[in-house]
């Protein structure tokens, strides 16, 4: 009688520890996994090519607070004249030599490169910060 009673009890496997482990795994994957994929912006440093056509290259200098200096003239990022200028540069397929003031954040420079690529600029060269 005692053996008969014990036999079915041993057969039932408790699923509670299993669920505990699954919950812990779930928490681990929820907290540690990332979903946004890393992208890249490529800058082709055509060092030799730029030296040939340096006279023709458009010099863009990004200044603090969204001011952009293009060959001496000042524009504001995000305003229509600057967007038109970027489109003209892209249409002419001109070289762009991009630089920024030392205090400008990397994020704003990346945004400007992004704007340039979206306008269709292909030949972009990044040079060291200016004072």
């Amino acid at each position, binding site marked *: 009688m005692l053996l008969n009673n014990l036999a079915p009890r041993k057969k039932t496997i408790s699923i509670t520890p299993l669920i505990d482990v699954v919950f812990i795994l779930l928490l681990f994957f929820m907290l540690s*996994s990332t979903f946004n994929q*890393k*992208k*890249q*912006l490529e800058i082709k440093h055509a*060092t030799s090519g730029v030296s040939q056509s340096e006279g023709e290259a458009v010099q863009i200098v990004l200044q603090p607070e969204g001011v952009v200096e293009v060959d001496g003239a000042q524009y504001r990022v995000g305003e229509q004249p600057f967007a038109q200028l970027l489109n003209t540069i892209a249409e002419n397929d001109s070289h762009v030599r991009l630089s920024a003031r030392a205090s400008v*954040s*990397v*994020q704003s*420079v990346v945004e400007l490169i992004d704007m340039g690529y979206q306008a269709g600029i292909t030949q972009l060269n990044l040079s060291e910060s200016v004072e």
Partner: protein
Amino acid sequence: MMIFTHTQKPSRPKRQLDDSMVPAINIVFLLLIFFMIAGHIEARNADLQIPASSSEGELVARDIEIQILVNGEYYLNGQKIEKSLLASLQALAPSAESVVTCHIDRNLPFSALDPVLSAIRQLNIKRLQIATEQRL
């Protein structure tokens, strides 16, 4: 008989509880599989928040990787650079076809990129990739 009825009474709600747990466990399993397959695990660094862009180019792991942390420390392929970046890059003997991938913190001033730009120009490296994350 008294003992028999006494032992069966609590076992019934137990079985009912187990039965109602099954759909919940199914959902937990599904969530687990979703996070395992859809997400990907990578080392995250609070000192390195890469800039956001709308670029579509996938970031492919390259042989030369430079990381610039928010505190201004430079890492080349995971190793901290104590001397000049140019000398450390030179030791890797890059060719003109080499691609340099740069992970730079978005809050750093642009001048933090100067050593990288001057080093790759002096080593005649033509391709620089700036790692960005998708704008959400």
